[in-house]
């Protein structure tokens, strides 16, 4: 199977499940596919730094969570009618998905700029620990911040609106998520094949060489990190709309680990890899989860096999290795 064929298979599968859900009148299948698409999108963000840039961030829950809280807080204020702030400018909430997405993207990017500009001065284990520490800081902050539900989280009751569509309809919401996913993956595919993508790929492999041809590796990695944070934050906003609920658990290190598992299971540096990985993860969660409460043991075992024997993950297994940008 060529990489293109493998990607097509993932797309078709992602479309087939909600279609089957509609035909069989099993709407939970549609919701499941939507979840896969959103979690996969969070993985697409991480993949940019982990897969293409070689930066092992164990703190991507921070961006997922900030996107989630942007959606939750804006929708909460729109619903309650309280202004978000009255001074220096009066700012209210909103239930417009477009506005929420844009704010989530900007907040995710700014947070990534802040965290990245500090943590990217380190490498290896230190980088992993610093990204984790930042995410944990934000996690504990949300827990101890009573205004938006603290530990209990914040429900938003109805989905936000987009072009007058019935976003509460599972299939409609799935299609919204699917379109966003396709657009983001298209943009990422352009980025990884651009001049910048070449430099990012090179930085991962040999930073000294990149420096010696006049390219500052730090800048390249920071820009990738910011893009990555923005994408994962967008996924977080969608996730909150899916569940109509945001809570600190989105920010826990467990979430960071899951996003990383999607990328590794699916295949690092594969455009559709994180979606394949998220699909497998959610599938195992459903199937094994109904058989045993220790289903994560089996996921762990699978992860070990992938890391030891099939570094390319699902996408690499089905379409051969060495396909950066494929």
């Amino acid at each position, binding site marked *: 199977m060529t990489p293109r064929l493998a990607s097509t298979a993932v797309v078709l599968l992602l479309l087939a499940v909600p279609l089957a859900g509609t035909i069989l009148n099993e709407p939970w299948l549609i919701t499941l596919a939507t979840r896969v698409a959103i979690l996969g999108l969070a993985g697409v963000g991480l993949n940019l730094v982990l897969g293409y840039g070689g930066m092992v961030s164990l703190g991507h829950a921070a961006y997922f969570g900030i996107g989630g809280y942007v959606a939750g807080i804006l929708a909460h204020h729109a619903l309650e009618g309280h202004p978000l702030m009255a001074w220096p400018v009066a700012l209210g909430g909103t239930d417009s998905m477009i506005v929420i997405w844009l704010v989530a993207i900007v907040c995710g990017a700014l947070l990534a700029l802040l965290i990245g500009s500090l943590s990217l001065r380190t490498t290896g284990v230190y980088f992993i620990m610093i990204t984790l520490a930042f995410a944990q800081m934000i996690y504990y902050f949300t827990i101890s911040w009573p205004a938006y539900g603290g530990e209990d989280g914040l429900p938003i009751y109805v989905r936000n609106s987009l072009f007058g569509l019935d976003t509460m309809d599972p299939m409609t919401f799935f299609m919204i998520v699917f379109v966003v996913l396709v657009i983001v993956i298209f943009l990422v595919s352009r980025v990884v*094949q*651009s001049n*910048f993508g*070449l430099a990012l790929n*090179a930085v991962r492999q*040999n930073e000294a*060489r990149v*420096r010696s041809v*006049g*390219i500052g590796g730090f800048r390249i990695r920071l820009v990738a990190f910011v893009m990555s944070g923005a994408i994962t934050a967008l996924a977080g906003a969608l996730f909150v709309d899916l569940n109509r609920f945001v809570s600190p658990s989105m920010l826990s290190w467990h979430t960071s680990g899951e996003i990383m598992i999607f990328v590794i299971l699916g295949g690092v540096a594969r455009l559709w890899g994180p979606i394949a990985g998220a699909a497998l993860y959610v599938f195992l969660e459903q199937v094994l989860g109904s058989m045993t409460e220790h289903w994560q043991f089996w996921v762990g075992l699978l992860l070990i096999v992938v890391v030891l024997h099939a570094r390319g993950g699902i996408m690499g297994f089905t379409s051969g290795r060495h396909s950066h940008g494929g």
Partner: protein
Amino acid sequence: MAAESGNAPVVLDVVGLTRSFGAVRANDAVSLDLVTGEIHALIGPNGAGKSTFISQVAGDLAPDSGSIRFQGRDIGQMSAAQRARLGMARTFQISSLIPEFTVLENAMLAHLGRLGESMRFFAPVARDRKLRQLARTCLERVGLDSRHRERVSEISHGERRLLEIAIALALEPAVFLLDEPMAGLDQEGSRMLIGLLDSLRQTAPVLLVEHDMDAVFALADRISVLVDGRLIATGQPDAIRSDDTVRAAYLGVEHP
């Protein structure tokens, strides 16, 4: 030193470069200059501090003290990337390339750096005609153009050495810093590379760190000798060959 430099303009002027690692003085007040059109060889036994010197000049290693002037500018505070953009082209003792890239992509990356075009996010780099053309011209000059589609991990050691030079050429250098370009080459490969290096001085002056004495004496206009971090002599090849200190400290051991 001024007499030996003649009237040719000084491109690179290093004064009193000192760097210690713990108790070891890897470079002890090393001063050396490079004038237009010359190949200046830096020789010395293993561990003399030659690579340390190149790394400091290129900006990969910060000196404890000393100054580096390049084309009249003090570049001591500049990063390695900034120095490269000014036209400082270094090669590495152990080939340092992008292993998963093709030969062409490695050369394209260098042009990307020189042109400052790494922050373009949308157009596919593989279809950038101008960049490809520039890269292939450099590959042609070192005789690697026919191999431009090969992945670096698939080409021979000798070809990697040539690619290092092609990348240096891509930077449109004002100076070459070559760290043992001959390392690990067989006789045939060395002979070819000597011809190539000989032609480089017309592009820009060359600081050549090299162990191959035949190559050094065939190529160098001037030779500096580094022993235990100290420069013990600088001069024309004939003067160095007959210098008693040098013979005692270094040449005498390898060429009895």
